[in-house]
């Protein structure tokens, strides 16, 4: 059925929406150049997968996936508190490599490169989300929760404080704001939702291994946030839909399959380049990428 393919694409868009909207909170709204998002995604995926394989109920697995990612977000926020810009980017990138290395080498827990197969489909109160349509509905509910929670945060007075920290941290501190606490909350909230996205990914794909959480997988997420525009949730949603779906029509053009793979990568690079040249703030960006 053609609809199965479309539903599959919509599920992927949904998972990416949770990831990119949550990354927007730390990168766009708080100004933290956070390259550790893929690590939180991995933590969420592994937590949910391990608990699900141990027979834990879905609602508890997904919640704990978010909470464990959140805990790591808090731990990361402590040493990176005084770092900014490139230095913060490097430190958080290091964190991503660290989590990848743990996933790869702690074979006793993660089975290392052998991965975790056979992750069961979610089940809530006896209802199994075995079909993709029901899984899509579940994903959309989590997307909506993510969107509205992050929107609520960013439009609240606390959101203005986040923006103040992004625009001038020193000034925010002079005004008596505890910037460490504020940045930590932003990173922790961002990590929580990345954890949820990771758990949905694990439940959907039913198999995870470290190769799904490399730095190469962070690039499209960062690209979406930049193309959508920093500090713009609307831009992030549009950019996610465009960039995730953009390569798909290529499957139908009739190019040799060996051309389609590189064409996808060229397309991403081209869109990113054009956006940075002609719209340095992205689709709806409120601030420029420094």
């Amino acid at each position, binding site marked *: 059925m053609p609809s199965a393919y479309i539903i599959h694409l919509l599920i992927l868009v949904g998972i990416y929406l949770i990831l990119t909207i949550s990354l927007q909170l730390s990168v766009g709204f708080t100004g933290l150049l956070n390259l550790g998002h893929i690590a939180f995604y991995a933590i969420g995926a592994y937590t949910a997968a391990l608990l699900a394989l141990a027979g834990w109920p879905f609602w508890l697995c997904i919640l704990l996936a978010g909470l464990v990612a959140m805990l790591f977000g808090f731990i990361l926020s402590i040493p990176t508190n005084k770092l900014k810009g490139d230095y913060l980017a490097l430190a958080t990138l290091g964190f991503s490599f660290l989590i990848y290395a743990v996933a790869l080498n702690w074979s006793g827990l993660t089975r290392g490169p052998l991965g975790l197969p056979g992750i069961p489909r979610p089940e809530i109160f006896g209802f199994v989300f075995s079909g993709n349509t029901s899984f899509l509905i579940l994903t959309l509910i989590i997307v909506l929760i993510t969107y509205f929670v992050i929107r609520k945060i960013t439009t609240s007075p606390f959101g203005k404080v986040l923006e103040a920290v992004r625009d001038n941290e020193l000034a925010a501190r002079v005004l008596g704001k505890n910037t460490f606490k504020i940045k930590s909350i932003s990173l922790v909230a961002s990590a929580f939702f990345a954890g949820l996205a990771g758990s949905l990914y694990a439940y959907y794909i039913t198999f995870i291994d470290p190769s*799904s959480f490399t730095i190469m997988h962070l690039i499209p997420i960062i690209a979406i946030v930049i193309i959508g525009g920093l500090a713009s949730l609307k831009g992030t949603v549009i950019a996610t839909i465009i960039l995730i779906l953009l390569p798909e029509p290529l499957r139908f053009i009739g190019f040799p399959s060996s051309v389609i793979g590189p064409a996808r990568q060229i397309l991403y690079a081209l869109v990113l380049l054009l956006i940075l040249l002609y719209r340095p703030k992205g689709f709806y960006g409120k601030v420029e990428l420094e």
Partner: protein
Amino acid sequence: MSKSSKTITWLVVIVIIIAGIWYGVTRKTPPSEENPIKIGSILILTGEGASWGTAAKNGIDMALEKINSQGGIDGRKLVVVHEDDQSDPKNALSAFQKLTGIDGVSTIIGTTWSHTGLPLVDLAKENKTLIISPSLGVKDFNEASEYLFNTWPHDFYLSQELADYVYKKGHRKVALIGAQQVWVKDQTNAFKSRFEELGGSIEVLLEPNPTDKNANTDALKIKEKEADIDAIISTTDGILVGVQIAKRVREIGIELPIYSISIDADVIAAAEGAYEGMEFLTFLTPTQKFQKEYEEKYGLAIDIGAASAYDAAILIAEAMKETKSTDTAVLQEHLNKIEQYNGVSGELVSDGKGGFTKPFLSKKVVNSIPIDIR
């Protein structure tokens, strides 16, 4: 540009993309007089692993050429829709949904590697999609359903054989080079447990990240234990980090014999002499005729996946001919009954669970060319 016109522009972009997908999804392919039978392939055609995926794609194309030149399946042409998963599980799922949902395919050859094949297991079971992998080596795949098959033997078989081979050669204490890669890990574990079961011991175990470029530390670990070991075993096959370690080992003057598995001409060339004299076991056992035809047609050295993908396509075609059906329930039943099949990749023997194995070859690298020794 005003905010509303910006929104309209981006909405138009989204609509165009969705329309493009919708067009592809709903378009009606022109009715063909021949009414072809469509199968699909999901292979790694770009990025890491593309040499295996491309070899498999070429093998399938060769098989289809042969089948169609002999009249196809009861007069119907057999065609294939190739999809590239780029070694990403998400893309493998997208390719699967596109092939089964839009192209109407219910028989697929793929995937190239385990981490893209395992996510398809549940879907294949649910949709009763027949999948034959030409190079995936974990048994979790084919043993998960009667609709899943491998024409490439499981990774651990050859490693167990290598353990026996090395032990019979008189080696008792060895350094073992593996890598943090799914099938290499499987191979390393299999060698280790078999060798230890025989009474041998692994004095040094190295399992670097496959992307590591610096082999110095690993080579020095072997150097440190050089006096205690009598051979070096590499289960890294095509993973280049194994080659890097072997090169560095030779550069620092370690002359211990090296044994390995599934090495091809590209890997030997990349080793730049470090694999000279090395003995290895391989399942890459194409018939000479097929190898010659393949190399003449594509101008490429034959690689893992080519002959076994060819055999997979022929097995499917023969099953369709003999059962006069394209129903996967009928085809899987037929394929599950095959006990032995003499293909271009070797004499395949079924394990009764969808997996095939075959005799392997022992080879030795002499003047950078692998020659048969058994």
